[in-house]
C-alpha cells in the first residue's frame, strides 16, 4: 500500500519522512554513528590535552608576571619584552637557522640512503632489515645518543685524535664540540632516520617497469632521477620534512648537552623560564614556537599536495 503510494506519487514527491525511515537510511545512520564512535576517543583526547591547553597557553601569555608570582590581569608586557629583546629574537633566529640546516642535512644524507634501500634493494626482507638497522641507534636512550657525541667530538675525542695522529692538524679542532656545529651534528644524526623512512616508503612503491620504460625511451640515470624518481618521491620528502621540522623546532635537549650553553633555542628558553616559574614569558615563547611550526608545516604542505600525490 505504502509502496504503491510512493510509486504513484513519483520520485520528486516522495516524502522526506518515508525515505528517512527506509532501511537504506537506517543503515546510513548506523554507519554514521559507528564513525562518530570511532572518532570520539581521539577527539576527546585532543580537545582535553591539546586544544584546551593551547588556548590556556595563549591566555596565560597575556597574564601579568611579577618576580615570584603570576596573576590573571591582562597585559602585553611579556609580549613586548619578547619582541624587543635582542636575546629572544636572536634565539628565534637561531632556532629557524638550525632547523633549516638540519632539514637540508637530513635530506642530503637521508635521500641517498632511502634511494638505496627503497629503489636498488628490491627484496622486501632485505629492505626491512636495512630499515631496522637504521633505527638500531634508537634502542638506546635519547640522552645516551646525544652524550655519546662528546667523546667523539671533544678536544681529546676520537676525531681530533685521529686527525692529530695523521698529522693533518697541529692543534685539536675546538669548534667540533660545544658549538653550533656539534648541535647540528647531533640533531642530524638523531633525526635523519625520520627522513629516510617516509622517502624509502615512497620510493619502494615506484613500479620498476616505470623506470625501465624511461630507460627504454632513452633517458639516462640523472634524467630519470630528476624527472621520474624525485617527483614521485616528493610526498615522502614532505612527510619526512614535517617529522624532522616538528621535532627540531621543539628541540632543547641536544642544544643543552652539546652546545655548552652557547646555542639557545626557543625550546631552551621555555625550559629555563618554566624552571624559574616565569609562566607568562614561557607561554609567549611557546606561542611563537607554535606559530613558526604551523607556518613551516603549511608551507611544506603547499609544496606538495600529499593527498593528491598519494
Amino acid at each position: 500500500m505504502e509502496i504503491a503510494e510512493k510509486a504513484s506519487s513519483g520520485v520528486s514527491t516522495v516524502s522526506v519522512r518515508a525515505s528517512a525511515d527506509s532501511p537504506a537510511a537506517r543503515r546510513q545512520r548506523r554507519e554514521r554513528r559507528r564513525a562518530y564512535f570511532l572518532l570520539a576517543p581521539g577527539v576527546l583526547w585532543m580537545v582535553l590535552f591539546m586544544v584546551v591547553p593551547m588556548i590556556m597557553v595563549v591566555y596565560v601569555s597575556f597574564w601579568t608576571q611579577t618576580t615570584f608570582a603570576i596573576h590573571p590581569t591582562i597585559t602585553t608586557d611579556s609580549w613586548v619584552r619578547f619582541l624587543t629583546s635582542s636575546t629572544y629574537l636572536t634565539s628565534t633566529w637561531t632556532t629557524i637557522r638550525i632547523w633549516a640546516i638540519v632539514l637540508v642535512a637530513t635530506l642530503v644524507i637521508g635521500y641517498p640512503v632511502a634511494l638505496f634501500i627503497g629503489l636498488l634493494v628490491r627484496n622486501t626482507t632485505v629492505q626491512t632489515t636495512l630499515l631496522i638497522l637504521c633505527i638500531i641507534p634508537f634502542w638506546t636512550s635519547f640522552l645516551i645518543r646525544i652524550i655519546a657525541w662528546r667523546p667523539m667530538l671533544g678536544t681529546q675525542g676520537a676525531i681530533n685524535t685521529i686527525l692529530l695522529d695523521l698529522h693533518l692538524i697541529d692543534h685539536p679542532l675546538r669548534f667540533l664540540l660545544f658549538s653550533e656545529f656539534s648541535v647540528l651534528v647531533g640533531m642530524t644524526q638523531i633525526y635523519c632516520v625520520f627522513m629516510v623512512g617516509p622517502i624509502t616508503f615512497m620510493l619502494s612503491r615506484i613500479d620498476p617497469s616505470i623506470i625501465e620504460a624511461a630507460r627504454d625511451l632513452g633517458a639516462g640515470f640523472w634524467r630519470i632521477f630528476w624527472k621520474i624518481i624525485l617527483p614521485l618521491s616528493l610526498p615522502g620528502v614532505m612527510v619526512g620534512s614535517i617529522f624532522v621540522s616538528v621535532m627540531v623546532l621543539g628541540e632543547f635537549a641536544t642544544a643543552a648537552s652539546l652546545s655548552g650553553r652557547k646555542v639557545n633555542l626557543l625550546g631552551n628558553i621555555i625550559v629555563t623560564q618554566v624552571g624559574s616559574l616565569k609562566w607568562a614569558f614561557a607561554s609567549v615563547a611557546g606561542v611563537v614556537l607554535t606559530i613558526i611550526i604551523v607556518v613551516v608545516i603549511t608551507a611544506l604542505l603547499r609544496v606538495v599536495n600529499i593527498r593528491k600525490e598519494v
Partner: protein
Amino acid sequence: MLALNSVSKWYGEVCALDRLNVVIPDDCYVSLLGASGSGKTTLLRVIAGFEEQDEGTVTLNEVRLEGMPPHRRGIGFVFQNFALFPHLSVFDNIAFGLRYRETGAERDGSVIRQRVADMVRLVGLEGLERRAVTAISGGQRQRVALARTLVAEPRVVLLDEPLGALDANLRERMCDELKTIRERLGVTFLHVTGSESEALLMGDMVAVLADRRIAQIAPADELYARPVSPEVARRLNAYNILSGKLSNGAFRSKASGFPVRGEHLVDGTPIDVAVRFDRFTVRPSGAAGGAEAFVEARFIASEFTGALFLSFFRSNDGQLLQVVTHMSGPEPEMYETGKDYRLAFDPNDAIVYSGEAA
C-alpha cells in the same frame, strides 16, 4: 630484420630460454604465443636489453645488440601494465622520450608539440593531452603507452601482453587499431600473448614458444592448419592429441585404431595424432562407420559459448577429448552424461607425428 641465434638465458639453475632461434622479418606483425611461464617475457626483456642473454646473439639489421643499453637498440617496449609516468600528463608522457633521451634529445618545443600531436592523432587521443594519466580509462592508457613508444620511432616494437589489462570489447577494438597503426608506420610489432585466438587474429606471422624454444613460426593460417609438433598443436587449443603406436600402417591405442599415412615410419614406433576439435562427428556407440576413424569415449559435459558448442568426452584410455560444433550448422543433439559415444573423423584429417620427434 631481428634475428636471435642460439639464445640461452638462465636464472640460477632454472633455464628460461634454451638455444632459441628465430628470425623476425621487417614490416611485419608477429605474434608470439606461449603459455605463462614459457619464457615469453624473458625473451622480450632480452631483446629489449633489460636483461642480457647468457649465450647466443641478438642482431637487428646485422648489428649485434648485446651489451647495448635498451635505448640504443632502436627497440620500443610497451609494458603489460603500461608503466605510464603517473605524475605526468598524457602530453608529457608521450613527449618524454623526445625531450629527455640521452642522444638526439629534441629541444625545440614546437617540434615536440608537432610530433606529439601527430602521434596523438594516430592513436586517437585527441583532446586528452592535458589530462593526468591517472584520470583516463584503461584503453586510453594503452594508447598513451603505445604513443609514447612510437613517437621515438623504434624499428621494432615489443608488446608484452598489451591487451591483457583491457576488457573483452575493448580488446577486440584495440586489436584492429594496433594492426592499422602498425601498417601505417611500417615498423615491426612483436606481440606477446598467452591467448591463441589473439595470436592468430593479430599476427601476420605467429611464433609458438614451447619448451623454452620457438617451436614454429609461420603465417597464422598455415600454423593453424599444420602445426609442426604436438606441442604446437596443444598450444593452439584446437586439436585433440591421441597417443599410440604404429602397427601395420595403422594407429593403435586402447581407445582407437585407424589407418594412417605414415609410410616412412617403422612399425611399432610410438606416434601422436592430432585431430582438430571441429573435425569430429559424435555417433552412437558401436554405429557402423565405414571408412571413418573413431575413438570410443564417454560423454562428460557440454558448454554453450554462443557461436560454438563444446562437448567434453573421456576416452577409454583416460584422455580428455573435446568436440566443437558450430551453431551455424544443424542444432547439436543433447548427449547423455556417462553414456558411451563414438567420436568419428576422417583419417585424412589426422596429422601424424612420430613419437621420437616430439
